């Protein structure tokens, strides 16, 4: 005990801090119990998030989904266009007409002549600004 403590002890000698008023106990516990009941019956999502085992389950499920997604994508291959798997399955099943449609050679625009690249409708703007006139070449 230091000199400082002695000073305070002499100053506070014989005095005491008043205790909590007795009439505070009942409302304090009543409010606390109400909060406890609210918390117990509270938000189930919060409980699911705060529970350690459930949190591990969440994490494991997310990890499995990510790994499975990566594995499926790798197996399918990135170069194959989406939807081709179903078409190929149809051709294997014996639908010759569909297989012939699928087997059509793709047009590589890089090998086309410059004047044949644009095959869409050509718009010719008149001097008066009538842009509705179309010239199909």
């Amino acid at each position, binding site marked *: 005990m230091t000199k400082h403590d002695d000073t*305070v002890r002499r100053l506070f000698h014989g005095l005491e801090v008043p205790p909590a008023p*007795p009439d505070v106990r009942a409302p304090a516990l009543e409010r606390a119990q109400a909060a406890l009941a609210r918390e117990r019956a509270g938000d189930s999502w919060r*409980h699911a998030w705060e529970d350690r085992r459930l949190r591990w389950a969440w994490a494991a499920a997310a990890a499995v989904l990510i790994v499975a997604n990566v594995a499926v994508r790798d197996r399918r291959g990135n170069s194959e266009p989406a939807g081709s798997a179903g078409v190929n399955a149809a051709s294997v099943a014996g639908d010759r007409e569909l297989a012939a449609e699928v087997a059509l050679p793709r047009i590589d625009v890089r090998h086309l002549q410059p004047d044949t690249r644009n095959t869409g409708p050509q718009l010719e703007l008149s001097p008066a600004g009538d842009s509705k006139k179309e010239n199909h070449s």
Partner: protein
Amino acid sequence: MTRSPAPGVLSTMGAMPLAIPAASNVGTDARGGAWAEAGPWRELFSRIAAGEVEALARLYDLAADRLFGLALWRTGSRDDAADVVQETFVRVAEQRARLDRVRDPRWWLLAVAHRLAIDHARRRQQRPAEGLEACAELVAPQADQALAVDAARVCELLWRLPAKQRAVIYLRHFGEMTFAEIGNSLGIPLFTAASRYRLALARLRQLVGGAT
């Protein structure tokens, strides 16, 4: 310390009536040895985390006086201090899921009460201040007129100290806490707690010298 008998069933939550247990005589003196060991407090927190209402009442009996004292010295208002005690126990109930992870419930309770007391004190600054009679941080134990006069004079001196310094003096002298423990409770470094205490004593000595 005498307490009024607690009421029986106070409220009903759903179909289950919640009975508030009567105040027990064991551990009602919060400034005694009940604060010396953390073990019983951790056990109480675990029981509350498990949803035991009786543990909440037991915790109140152990902690209410010290929490009230800290709040009273921090806010300077008995009404605010009573509100702080109530709100502290509401926080305990609301934080039920996390109580198991509290390292030392004693400092956690004091820290919660201290923060709430600061909030109340800030709100109080916007309202008219109470008279000195209402801010009795210290009282005489019994009907001792001489001590009652002393208590009033000391309260007047304490009222001139900054609230931060009053809280440290309270915890150091009446809580019998070390500066490290005070720092843990108030969320300040050990040296800051010691510094506030030293400054408060210097100011008190100055005030006492001026008063005599």
